[in-house]
């Protein structure tokens, strides 16, 4: 099986929301900045006063690569590794799914979709 993330105290709300089909990130109550991955403090202003906020789930592909050699046994090739910039600002790694490898482009609009893997739901992105 593909790797399953080991959830920490700080990231537990992220994964719990994902399991419920919601894409949540910490939003700073001091500077209003959103960040990913979830931290103990806001990396923009170092405030520790943050709330979890639901994201639109929309973004665009900053860059990608089509992987032809699997790093471990669980991965079926080819797959698309990408970094997506979210509408709210943060950027994150993901796979582009429900998309043939020839169709992915830089700048392409994408929306979040959840992949069930073991007991968790992993945020992924598909063409919008």
């Amino acid at each position, binding site marked *: 099986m*593909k*790797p*399953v*993330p*080991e*959830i*920490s105290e700080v*990231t537990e709300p992220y994964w719990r929301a994902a399991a419920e089909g919601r894409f949540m990130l910490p939003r700073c109550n001091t500077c209003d900045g959103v960040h*990913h*991955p979830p931290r103990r403090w806001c990396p923009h202003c170092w405030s520790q006063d943050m709330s979890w906020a639901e994201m639109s789930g929309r973004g665009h592909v*900053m*860059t*990608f*690569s*089509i*992987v*032809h*050699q*699997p*790093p*471990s046994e669980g*991965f079926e090739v080819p*797959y698309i*590794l*990408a*970094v997506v910039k979210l509408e709210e600002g943060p*950027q*994150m*790694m*993901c*796979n582009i799914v429900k998309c043939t490898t020839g169709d992915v482009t*830089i700048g392409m609009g994408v929306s979040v979709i959840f992949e069930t*893997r073991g007991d968790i739901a*992993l945020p992924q992105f598909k063409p919008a």
Partner: protein
Amino acid sequence: MTLSRRLPGSPAIAAASEIAPGRYPDHDGFAMQELVMANFLAQWDLDPSLIDGLLISPAGMAVGSGANIFVHEWMTDSLGIKPRYAMTVNAGGATYNLMAMRAATTISSGLADAVLCIGAGKFPKVGAGAGDTMAKMVSDPQFEYPYGSFIPALYALTANRHMHDRGTTREQLASVAVSSRKWALKHPDAIMGHKGPITVDDVVNSRPIASPFNLLDCSVPCEGGAAFLVARGDIAREITDQPAYVLGFGEYHDHGAIALSSDFAAMGAGNAAKPAFAMAGLQPSDVNMAQLYDAFSINPILLLEETGLAKPGEGGRFFEDGRGAPDGDLPVNTYGGLLSFGHTGDASGITMLVEGALQTMGCAGDRQVETDITLVHTYGGMMADQATLLLGRAP
């Protein structure tokens, strides 16, 4: 005229040597480092009482075999020295440029006179779970690794964005590997030196790894290491007629996880190069030779552009036109690069520094090129830690 901020005492690289890259199955981390030192001491006639500083990196991180983070203590005993400045340091591929910088500032401040810098590296063989081990080591465990963060694909994120933004072509990437192979044919120790020249077609038609990279766009995993000595200028001149003076340097640390990179079309290397040129009182046009860390074929293109040696978007054309190859106007990676000399795991970043020093000192044998000013740029992590070093024949 730019005002130089060059360091007092004219610190310089006075000695450098590297063991042949290859496989050393009978040598673990510390045994590799002693092998490196035995080779260094055989080539350079040094008085132990001269050495009062030691910087060394852990060996074996990439194979996950418990790299020794107290290795400076082990080496202190092994060498029979009692330095007044010593540490085990690591910043991945940037480690050795950073060692040279730390040594230079330490010497200039009077805290040491001669700092020995040592690196040895192990690298797992590709296959046998190596891709997974390495991916795990360099990735955020929750937010990158589960997505299949295979190292060639992480570098490919940058290559694809650079091709998109700057018009770099697939063939131009391949021409970097072609150029490096030409140099490797001149180096007796280069791993791919006996494989003969390669063409752009050879690279493009080799096995696909992660788009846009094929196998020959990737550096060659192996094992090895080197040592070099940074000494105050007057001491360096007693060791060798022509030291490689440390004229300027700079560093910059952009991110940890590559997903958080500020700009995928660049590595942030310019933020290290600019202060290096300012310190040296030099311009990119003063540089005669460049040694640029090349885990993958995209990196020398990015680094040429970001250090100012080529204009943005012209790095690919530079290699396509053969300008970095033998007989080119700005030789790049004159030892064959990690692409064709070999990528010695933990020690990879020392190779281009040793080559830059040997070329500047006039000690590069059959591949010697005239150079007064040599730029060495290395990076660590997933293009995270950037380090530029300018070496020169005159202080």
